[in-house]
């Protein structure tokens, strides 16, 4: 099945024509399957058909003929994305069901549409080798590798594969962009890239934390490291779903969505009470850099004092709340 995108001069929006049965005749006459009402087109202009080598378009002795790569030709072999002129009309050929809009491709993470199987195989091998290497790195950074860890790594890879398969499948169904054949692999490359970045940042974070003494900047880095993956996926989803309308709109919506999610994550991260009791970066190293003048224990006692007054308030609030409830119950 082929889709023709026919552009008239000085008009941006194309006419889209699906062709499902062959041969298919093109011309100005209404007898033709594809009728092009343009003075540059002959009554019976051309025919699209296929043979053992694939699809082709053949001139039927028209006045203006078929122009491919600047030359007039009798037969033009049709490839994916090839462009030629029928009379003065520009025709783009797309294989497959979906209409492949150029603006859409630009927003894809890995904007590669593969033309042959070899590349796909190379990519998948690359992907899994990267995943394996990353898993080993991840495990090594946390613990020296032994038998137990080894099994763990295998499990990580297998489960990672399953998760990726599901997510990429869901992604491609959602986006409706790709030719079925290529869907998984483009998304695999996308996930490989981001898992790379994710694991690297996440594992080296504690090391970086040695040198970050500012609490908020640490929290920002941690949040981004933890959620960049998620953020990027939401951004992509947003771009994909708004692609039909206009690029400006997409940019605004996706950008604001990104900001909102980032903000929400940051707020929830800082508001989570129990997190205050866990590690928050800034371990005192190197020791000599901390001086007593600036970090007197007195500061600690002051904040404890504040906390105690806060707890007192919480306690009184709780007591008042209970009294109210009691009164309510008594009335009932």
């Amino acid at each position, binding site marked *: 099945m082929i889709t023709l995108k026919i552009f008239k001069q000085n008009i941006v929006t194309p006419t889209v024509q699906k062709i499902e049965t062959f041969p298919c005749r093109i011309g100005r006459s209404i007898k033709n399957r594809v009728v092009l009402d343009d003075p540059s087109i002959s009554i019976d202009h051309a025919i699209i058909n296929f043979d053992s080598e694939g699809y082709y378009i053949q001139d039927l002795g028209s006045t203006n003929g078929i122009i491919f790569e600047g030359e007039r030709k009798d037969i033009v072999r049709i490839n994916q994305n090839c462009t030629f002129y029928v009379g003065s009309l520009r025709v783009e050929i797309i294989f497959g069901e979906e209409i492949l809009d150029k603006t859409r491709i630009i927003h894809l993470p890995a904007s590669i549409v593969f033309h042959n199987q070899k590349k796909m195989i190379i990519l998948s091998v690359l992907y899994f080798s990267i995943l394996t290497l990353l898993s080993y790195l991840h495990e090594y950074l946390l613990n020296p590798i032994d038998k137990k860890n080894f099994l763990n790594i295998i499990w990580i890879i297998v489960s990672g594969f399953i998760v990726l398969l599901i997510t990429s499948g869901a992604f491609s169904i959602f986006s409706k962009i790709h030719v079925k054949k290529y869907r998984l692999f483009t998304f695999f490359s996308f996930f490989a890239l981001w898992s790379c970045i994710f694991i690297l940042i996440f594992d080296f974070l504690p090391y970086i934390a040695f040198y970050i003494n500012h609490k908020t900047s640490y929290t920002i880095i941690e949040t981004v490291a933890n959620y960049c993956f998620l953020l990027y996926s939401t951004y992509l989803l947003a771009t994909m779903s708004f692609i039909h309308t206009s690029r400006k709109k997409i940019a605004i919506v996706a950008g604001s969505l990104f900001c909102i999610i980032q903000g929400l994550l940051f707020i929830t991260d800082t508001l989570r009470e129990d997190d205050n009791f866990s590690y928050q970066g800034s*371990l005192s190293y190197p020791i000599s850099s901390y001086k*007593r003048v600036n970090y007197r224990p007195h500061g600690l*006692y002051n904040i404890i004092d*504040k906390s105690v007054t806060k707890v007192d308030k919480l*306690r009184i609030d709780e007591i008042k709340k209970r009294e109210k409830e009691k009164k309510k119950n008594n009335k009932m």
Partner: protein
Amino acid sequence: MLINFKYICLLTILISCFSNTLWGRTRIRTGHQDQDLYARVKHYVYQIKTATDAKSSKASYGTGFVVDKNGLVITNYHVVADALQDEDKNFKIFLVDGDKSIPARIVNISVIHDLALLKVKKKFKNALSISKKPPTQGETIYSIGLPKDLKMSIVKGIYNGVIKSSLYEQILMSSPINSGMSGGPTLNSNVQVVGINVSILLNSQNISFAIPAAHAGKLVKEYLKKGDPDLKNNVDKIIEAQLHNVEKNLMVDMKKNPGDNFTIGNWTFAPPSKSLKCWSQNIKHDKKTYEVTNQTCFLQDGSYVSDSIYSGSYEVQYRIVKNISRNSIQFFNLLRTLYNKGHAFSNAYLKYYDNELISKYDCNEKIVVNKHDIPIKINYCVNGFIKYSKLYRLYVKGVTILNRNDALIFNAKLDGFSKKSMIDFLKYQLSKIKLKNKK
């Protein structure tokens, strides 16, 4: 990974709402003398239960004994705590006399010693007398009570003297007492009360504790002096005052017996008091990539307030983590998990607080440099008791690291301390952390 010794030596209060038949029924062989004892004691020992009304089934139960003919009965505070701590005051206290349940009310309490004095509207024929002399070590004693809600039983045991390491006196007995017997008397062969059954040591055989009878005597005296005050509305205030007293005693103890300095690896520190029981433990990882040395110190005493909270107790833990063959990122990752997942000091523990008794908590963090120029990163959380003002629970943890391969993690848990005491405690602890060979 790391075994917390606290659980091995945890004192458990003998309170149980469920009939637990796991241990089977113990038969006591009674000799001639014991038969005599049984007959004599029968009318002085009763079951005490808390329930919503006289006929309904019990919420908790224990034993009580008559100390005064006019209806004064001694039992454990923890037996009747349910009735006191219950917000809606649905639970009432009853003395079970055969088929009858006689309502009782609390007239005096001592949270420190886990004692409660009850008044019952009934005249008894006679009362048990309190022994003025403590028994000699090795003397045979008889613990009496209604174990597991069954029938009055006598348990023969041996008096081993008073434990001196603990802040509050406790009698150590060799006798197999069971839950339900708390509040029951421990008698000498002259049928005089020498103690009140209170608790057993968990995961051990026949190690039981009793409160010296003199404390019960004091309670009775106090009551007789004051007359008959209405305790109903003042109970919380009385408990609060007693808990503050406990906490003051702890601070005095810390000042009087400061702990000795400990040195592990490059680090020197000191537990707050000699009254603490300390355990140390050295754990090497299988592959010997790192080494953790634990020093856990905890107080054996603590005042029971309710099933979920104790007051006037604290626990300190020091962990020295030494790097053997890890690179600095691996070591740092390890340190991070150790610091964040420290057993009783972890976040999970904080979440399980009793909403009825404990307020929400407030947390913060700070980097502090102590007087030995050691920077320590500190996280802490504070929450307070709702019923008792100015008493808080504090969880602190701190970490410091030397040359990227030697770290000290410091954990502390304080229950029922005032603000000043918490700060004093931290001041002392922080000032004691230093390097062994300071360059």
